[in-house]
């Protein structure tokens, strides 16, 4: 959108404050925490919705009904679950290492929440358009295995330690093809910024989305994202038949809730990033400019801007939740892989494939600069 007027909440909000006689420094200070709070609330609500979806869809897959008494269709069930975990006793095993035991879950959750910094819901609707954008997410997600190793070690339990080691091994193995798949997209859009990546996919609506130009990259990214989130078929770190619950075994109460929250926030985040990288982000299947033209409205009119902004948020969330739905369906459909199959698949299949994909993308970019980004 290269129009002169775009939806910019910061300018509007600060303009309002400064008109009320507040200095620019103070108005900036008041503005700064607002988007962060909003995104944090959005992330937590996203998790509640995902937990409800998980319970309902798994019930449907297994021909059960699922939660139904807490609110209409059991919609309040995740809240009840969360409250239950909140008031449970916080047990630290006697022979465990108390400090590392407490720090582990924190180290798992904080990077995931920080990564929401770069998720765009619209042209100006993100916390910060940092230049390193998507690379920041790749870097932050590499902190998580340290938290998992830490909690696995501190639990002083062989299942926990094995789970932590498995989680770290899996995370390292799948990070590389993941980063290579992202690199191919970055190469096409000439920028690491998530905003630029989405803007490069607008223009022809659904036809200009990256999934048509990067089908292999899309599959690699999705598989690796599932592995990073420890979702089935890659949930080896907490494989309950083998490891009780992996690194979570000794955890109870709020610390367990942090792991739970972290894994679901990570799932929603991964789905959002798939939609940003491959499914056109906030883009409507038809270009909004064309739609506005048909209706005879100028694209930079304030009302049209508000509507396109809302459509953008709805589209982003819709695409992300479609992917979450697929992830949940996958969880209850496919069996778990073995650890050697998992590592073989990552190193011997996905890694070469991602390298070939990168090479082909580079060649296509040189051959057809119009289609694959100049």
């Amino acid at each position: 959108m290269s129009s002169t007027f775009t939806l910019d909440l910061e300018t509007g909000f600060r303009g309002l404050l400064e008109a009320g006689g507040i200095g620019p420094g103070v108005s900036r200070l008041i503005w700064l925490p607002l988007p962060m709070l909003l995104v944090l609330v959005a992330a937590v609500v996203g998790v509640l919705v995902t937990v409800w979806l998980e319970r309902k869809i798994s019930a449907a897959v297994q021909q059960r009904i699922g939660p139904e008494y807490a609110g209409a269709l059991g919609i309040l069930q995740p809240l009840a679950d969360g409250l239950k975990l909140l008031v449970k006793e916080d047990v630290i095993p006697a022979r465990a290492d108390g400090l590392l035991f407490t720090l582990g879950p924190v180290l798992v959750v904080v990077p995931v929440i920080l990564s929401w910094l770069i998720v765009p819901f619209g042209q100006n609707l993100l916390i910060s358009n940092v230049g390193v954008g998507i690379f920041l997410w790749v870097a932050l997600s590499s902190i998580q295995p340290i938290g998992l190793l830490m909690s696995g070690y501190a639990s002083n339990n062989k299942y926990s330690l094995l789970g932590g080691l498995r989680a770290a091994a899996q995370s390292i193995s799948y990070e590389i093809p993941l980063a290579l798949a992202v690199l191919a997209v970055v190469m096409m859009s000439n920028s690491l910024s998530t905003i630029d990546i989405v803007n490069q996919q607008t223009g022809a609506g659904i036809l200009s989305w990256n999934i048509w130009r990067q089908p292999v990259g899309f599959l690699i990214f999705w598989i690796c994202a599932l592995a990073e989130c420890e979702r089935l078929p890659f949930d080896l770190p907490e494989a309950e038949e083998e490891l009780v619950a992996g690194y979570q075994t000794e955890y109870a109460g709020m610390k367990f809730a942090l792991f739970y929250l972290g894994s679901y926030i990570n799932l929603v985040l991964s789905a959002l990033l798939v939609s940003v990288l491959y499914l056109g982000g906030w883009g409507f299947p038809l270009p909004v400019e064309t739609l506005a033209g048909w209706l005879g409205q100028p694209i930079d009119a304030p009302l049209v801007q508000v509507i396109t902004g809302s459509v953008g948020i709805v589209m982003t969330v819709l695409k992300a939740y479609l992917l979450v739905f697929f992830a949940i369906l996958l969880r209850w459909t496919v069996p778990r892989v073995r650890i050697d199959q998992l590592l073989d698949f990552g190193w011997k299949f996905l890694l070469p494939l991602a390298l070939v994909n990168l090479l082909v993308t580079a060649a296509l970019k040189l051959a057809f600069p119009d289609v694959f980004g100049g």
Partner: protein
Amino acid sequence: MPPLAELTQLIVFALLAAAVLVGAIGVVILPNIVYSAFLLGGVFLAVAGLYLLLNASFIAAAQVLIYVGAVNVLILFAIMLVNKREAMGASPGVGLRRLLSSGVCAGLLLLLLRVTFTTAWATPGPPQIGEGAVIHLGEHFFSDYLLPFELASVLLLMAMIGAIVLARRDVLSADIATGEAVDQGLIEKSRTPLLMEKTP
């Protein structure tokens, strides 16, 4: 720059510098090697924060990805896979050793301090390029820094092949430590089966 931002930068710098110093001393001094390894991760993160403060966000992210996400995780892996809890007996002459090593460290510190205070630092430094850093780094890698870049890649490749050869015992004909003939097939066959045959 408004004073608020400057004050924030100063406070953040003081916190990060303190974190780096205390963390680094902890890595060296703590007796528990696992704590040292985790603290090392913290030090790496604080250094990344310093890079961020210098507007070098790409370097900061790369620092987190490589040092925290790869190097530190590998160190932790090595420690946890070789988790021998043997009590360290008091080695002879521990006092003398500590005295000597602290003397060497203090000498090194003095040397570095002298270099720091005698060098004519160009303040303010070169202009910050901020977000354009990625492009500049790429250009340097493929022009004047091509040879060091390629040499580093070849070195890493050699290290990787060496590690694979060491890990795959079937490539070696004899064990390095014991000198006995090693064959992966033989090792696997000599293992006792998990399920014993049921005796009638």
